[in-house]
């Protein structure tokens, strides 16, 4: 893999670099502006999950299940925030093999106020603790997304088991496969060493070292697939898990016959808006630096979302005769999902096009395909996150094209001693194929893995509440509470 290096991944600690040009000679620099931006981005991703996602989902279920959804999302966050420092971070972001990480940073060993994590710029780092926290919030929201698919009928005991298991066996490995690499400083330094080598032997040794550094990365990363903020890891991953789970747990009683009115679309709108607000932390925060590329990701996250929202709205207006609030908000979320992998790669005009396409395709899936196939993906986790994620992943491979206004892909093996790197040559077929492989691996691992986990849970504690309890509602049955007493 001599090909392009990607902007989105965990660089190893830059302090290991002692050779190389001025940008690297003294170790990486830490800018307080970057740290401030990453602190706030981390906080924004939490906001996006609770209350954001919780409300977006919660508002859509019947009032008797409102609290169960809020509870499940909240629980996901808490479990992720405990497992991550215990071993999740280590299992994701240390090197071992291409499929899963190691245990060298279990209990955050070695992660101190002194240790650093690289960014996507050579010689620029942020405090590792901030990086750990930022990535932790990604684990939290990803598993929480799945909840929407089996809402209103899964036992809380089953959810309580599923969440940690899914994180361990699905999320940590996939995140490792997509995001783990040696980091820009290591790659640039190794490439520089090749360049600096004085004779043949030295060159060969340096090249071997460079190849080793490049090989120290996850499977999907090695495909050369690009994913700015987690289209694959987060959305396709959670979306297919949701799909599998709604098939296994079965349809809600009355599905398709009874009106299952959202208990409060106002809550859903609050949630949708907070998703948008928080998503800037997700997308622009994934730049890891407070610079113009964060600005690009910010801009794209605005325009793709708005375009998708309007696309859904106008198509719905044309097809169904009315433009609904739920439609415009769902369209916005579809746009957010689709722009996630593209946020720092596409240009603003490309992002508008991406948004329109995602809005229309997700509309078709949620309104047409789902009804035709008859699966009960209660809150459209598959139709919005998996489909939107796939649309985004594939189109990112196209829209990154500099000739389409995209930002191109940085080639960290071609950096000058000041840390300024060249853009890799771009070939659409290669890139789209890499993207496709990434999509397929995610679908396969997460789809199959989730199936196994859910079957296991079904055989032990059981997945579903009884019909009587489902009628009474999970809030009273599982949690002993009622959402509203107005």
């Amino acid at each position: 893999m001599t090909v392009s290096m990607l902007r989105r991944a965990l660089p190893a600690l830059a302090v290991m670099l002692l050779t190389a040009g001025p940008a690297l000679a003294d170790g990486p620099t830490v800018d307080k502006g970057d740290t401030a931006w990453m602190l706030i981005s981390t906080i924004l991703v939490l906001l996006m999950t609770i209350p954001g996602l919780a409300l977006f989902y919660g508002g859509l279920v019947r009032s008797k299940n409102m609290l169960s959804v809020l509870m499940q999302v909240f629980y996901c966050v808490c479990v992720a925030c405990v497992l991550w420092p215990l071993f999740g971070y280590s299992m994701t972001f240390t090197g071992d093999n291409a499929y899963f990480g190691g245990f060298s940073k279990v209990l955050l060993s070695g992660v101190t106020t002194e240790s650093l994590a690289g960014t996507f710029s050579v010689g620029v780092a942020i405090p590792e603790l901030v990086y750990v926290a930022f990535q932790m919030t990604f684990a939290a929201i990803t598993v929480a997304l799945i909840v929407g698919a089996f809402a209103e009928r899964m036992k809380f005991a089953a959810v309580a088991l599923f969440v940690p298991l899914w994180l361990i066996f699905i999320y940590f490995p996939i995140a490792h496969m997509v995001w783990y690499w040696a980091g820009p400083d290591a790659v640039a330094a190794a490439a520089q060493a090749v360049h600096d080598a004085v004779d043949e032997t030295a060159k060969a040794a340096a090249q071997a070292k460079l190849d080793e550094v490049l090989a120290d990365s996850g499977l999907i990363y090695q495909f050369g697939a690009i994913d700015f903020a987690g289209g694959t890891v987060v959305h396709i991953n959670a979306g297919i898990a949701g799909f599998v789970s709604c098939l296994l747990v079965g349809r809600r009683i009355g599905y398709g016959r009874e009106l299952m009115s959202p208990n409060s679309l106002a809550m859903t709108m609050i949630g949708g808006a907070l998703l948008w607000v928080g998503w800037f932390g997700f997308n622009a925060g994934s730049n890891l630096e407070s610079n113009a590329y964060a600005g690009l990701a910010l801009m794209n996250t605005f325009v793709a979302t708005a375009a998708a929202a309007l696309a859904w709205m106008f198509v719905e207006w044309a097809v169904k005769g009315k433009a609904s609030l739920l439609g415009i908000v769902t369209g916005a979320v579809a746009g957010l999902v689709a722009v996630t992998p593209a946020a720092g790669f596409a240009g603003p005009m490309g992002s508008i096009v991406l948004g329109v396409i995602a809005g229309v395709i997700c509309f078709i899936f949620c309104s047409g395909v789902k009804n035709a196939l008859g699966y009960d993906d209660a809150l459209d986790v598959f139709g919005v996150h998996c489909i939107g994620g796939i649309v985004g992943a594939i189109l990112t491979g196209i829209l990154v094209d500099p000739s389409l206004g995209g930002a191109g892909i940085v080639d960290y093996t071609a950096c000058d001693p000041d840390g300024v790197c060249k853009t890799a040559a771009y070939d659409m077929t290669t890139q789209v194929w890499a993207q496709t492989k990434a999509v397929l691996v995610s679908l396969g691992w997460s789809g199959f893995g989730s199936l196994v986990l859910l079957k296991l849970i079904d055989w032990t504690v059981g997945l579903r509440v009884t019909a009587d309890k489902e009628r009474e509602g999970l809030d009273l049955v599982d949690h002993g509470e009622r959402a509203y007493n107005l």
Partner: protein
Amino acid sequence: MKIVTAIIKPFKLDEVRDALTGIGVHGLTVTEVKGYGRQKGHTEIYRGAEYAVSFLPKLKIEVAVPTSQVDKVIDAITGAAKTGQIGDGKIFVYSLDHAVRIRTGETDTDAL
């Protein structure tokens, strides 16, 4: 004594109340109900799910009156609640055996 019960369109409440106080009826009880009848409902669409909703919001008004006043009360309600469009509602009249004012223990017409 009789109880006159009327199912009306919600936005007619104030007019009906005024018509009743106009004829000297100073007490009534109102309940929010949903009505099903000839009046067409509406369709609600939530993403893929489309449902025809045939229950419409109505108000039920209950007025206990001496039998002698029943016709006046019916006229007052009909006059105030009528729009002439389907769904204006119904008036039902029942016999009331007995009435008590809890505060004072007064009974029957004294209690109204």
